[in-house]
């Protein structure tokens, strides 16, 4: 690949290298460039039309009152002002961050604990790993219905049936404004756990065994090894999973939509995340401009989370 660059320099000074070799090399370089751009032509078109243009259009639409019927009119920051004054938005904002702030630490601690111990188990290792990993391969929309069935009041709902057998009082789960959000969160954690366990195990495997040997020679206990060696060396993996999981919770939709179809985001909006609000604003109310402003807010939040990841990883490296 360096060869082409040298030839590029050569072609910059015509007549520099005399004779037929220049002509041959020049045509070879041109031919290769033709290949490059023919490989890239369709993808460039795709990214321009399907990714970049819509991105700018989303920003533009967020400053308009477009509603599918009348032509879009520029209204400045009116959508954003309306959004920040809308109590429903702040409720949705709070819900979305509850999914994130409660869900991410719980799922990461559980995933790490399982990965940490599973890594030591040799007997039927891949079978047990498969048990934890299988939920990751399921369709969220389908499993939302399974969990919805689990959460039903007795005698239909299995969880309440088991509670009954154990003498635990019946719980309303997704029918209660206090419990619904957490019930849905459990479904989302369950679905994502397998992925996090696999990634944690890959991270654990990547730590050289000599580190542990040295620590044992120094007389460190299990707990000290975990705190002083495993966790610090696992930091890049952990940060990646925190961001991956956070983005997942910030974009939660499939589970909420399917578990609350009678009153999407209900009861009383207690489970509604930002993406569901966007969906309803755009495709139930057809307030496209207003919905576009909400997507820009979502984009900003996701951007901050990603930049935070870069910043944390750079800090101590």
């Amino acid at each position, binding site marked *: *690949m*360096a060869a*082409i*660059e040298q030839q*590029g320099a050569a072609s910059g000074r015509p007549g520099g290298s005399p004779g037929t070799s220049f002509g041959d090399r020049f045509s070879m370089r041109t031919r290769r*460039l033709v290949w490059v751009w023919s*490989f890239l032509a369709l993808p*460039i078109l*795709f990214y321009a039309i*399907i*990714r*970049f243009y*819509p*991105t700018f*259009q989303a920003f533009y639409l967020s400053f308009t009152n477009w509603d599918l019927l009348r032509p879009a009119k520029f209204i400045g920051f009116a959508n954003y002002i309306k959004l920040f004054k809308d109590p429903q938005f702040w409720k949705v904002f709070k819900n979305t961050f509850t999914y994130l702030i409660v869900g991410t630490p719980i799922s990461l601690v559980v995933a790490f604990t399982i990965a940490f*111990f599973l890594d030591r*188990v*040799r*007997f*039927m*290792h*891949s079978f047990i790993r498969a*048990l*934890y*990993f*299988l*939920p990751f*391969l*399921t*369709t*969220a*929309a*389908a*499993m939302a*219905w*399974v969990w919805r*069935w689990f959460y039903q009041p007795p*005698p*239909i709902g*299995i969880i309440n049936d088991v509670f009954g057998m154990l003498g635990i009082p019946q719980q309303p789960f997704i029918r209660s404004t206090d419990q619904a959000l957490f019930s849905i969160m459990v479904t989302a954690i369950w679905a994502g756990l397998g*992925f996090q366990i*696999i*990634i944690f*195990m*890959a991270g654990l495997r990547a730590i050289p065994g000599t580190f542990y040997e040295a620590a044992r020679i120094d007389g460190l206990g299990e707990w000290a090894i975990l705190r002083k060696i495993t966790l610090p060396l696992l930091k890049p993996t952990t940060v*990646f999973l925190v961001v991956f999981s956070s983005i997942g919770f910030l*974009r939660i*939709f*499939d589970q909420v*939509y*399917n578990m609350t179809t009678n009153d999407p985001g209900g009861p009383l909006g207690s489970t509604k995340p930002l*993406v569901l609000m966007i*969906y309803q604003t*755009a*495709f139930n109310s057809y307030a496209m401009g207003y919905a*576009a402003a909400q*997507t820009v807010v*979502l*984009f900003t939040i996701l*951007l901050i989370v990603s930049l935070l990841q870069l910043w944390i990883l750079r800090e101590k490296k």
Partner: protein
Amino acid sequence: MSEATRLSHGKVRPGLIVTWTVLFIGGLIMVSPLAFMFSTSLKTADQIYDLRLIPAAPTLANYIAVLADGRFMRWFFNSTLIAVIVTVSNCFFDSLVGYTLAKFEFRGRYFIFLAILSTLMIPTEMLVIPWYLMSSQLGWLDSYWGIMFPGMMTAFGTFLMKQFFETVPNDFIEAARVDGLNEFQIWWKVALPLVTPALSALAIFTFLGNWTAFFWPLIVTTSKELYTLPVGLSSFAVEQSIQWEMIMTGAAIATLPTLLVFLVLQRYIVRGVMLAGLKG
């Protein structure tokens, strides 16, 4: 085998047995939603209050009823077709672009790489409104192409493939050039076979992502014949309201293919997830 012998050598600490047991029970809890879904799909309506995992009188009647309806067959077909086409497209274009960015030096290479990478920052949710507008203007609403077009190439796949093509030795490519292969043939016949682990990881992720996709198909389809399986299942479940055995049958049909593929390809899938997770 070696695992079993290690246990029988008597070097196992009791702690490890406790760990194993706890992990095993945890694993059973993890698969219990799947187990109960399949179990209930084999029960009749009057048996669903029976909590036993093995149905007293298992029956395929629910599957026959759901499939006889015809819609599920159609949704299954739609989902398969869409997931296969999008996967093939990603494997082709993402790896071609990844290869071009990894193995050619040309003006604008870095710019194109950054431009593609930057699209990772843009969430789908932000693009659906412009995509919807574009689709309605171009008549793509409610069509297979309308469901597929946003995912035909991805920055994630391009990035993944670029990382792996960088490990292919340049000597191989030069040797192929000397042998008179053209650049497309070099990619297709020499470079691509060397990165099959990455390619299979990309294929698995793309297929899974499209098979389970819900948000965009829900928006872009309006006629039931064009629903994908997740969207169809959602509408079916709303319609069935409290007929849980039918809903579980539908959910089982939507879940079964990916689980079966996993059972066959477990090693490759786990490795693929590790590859993609660590490199991506």
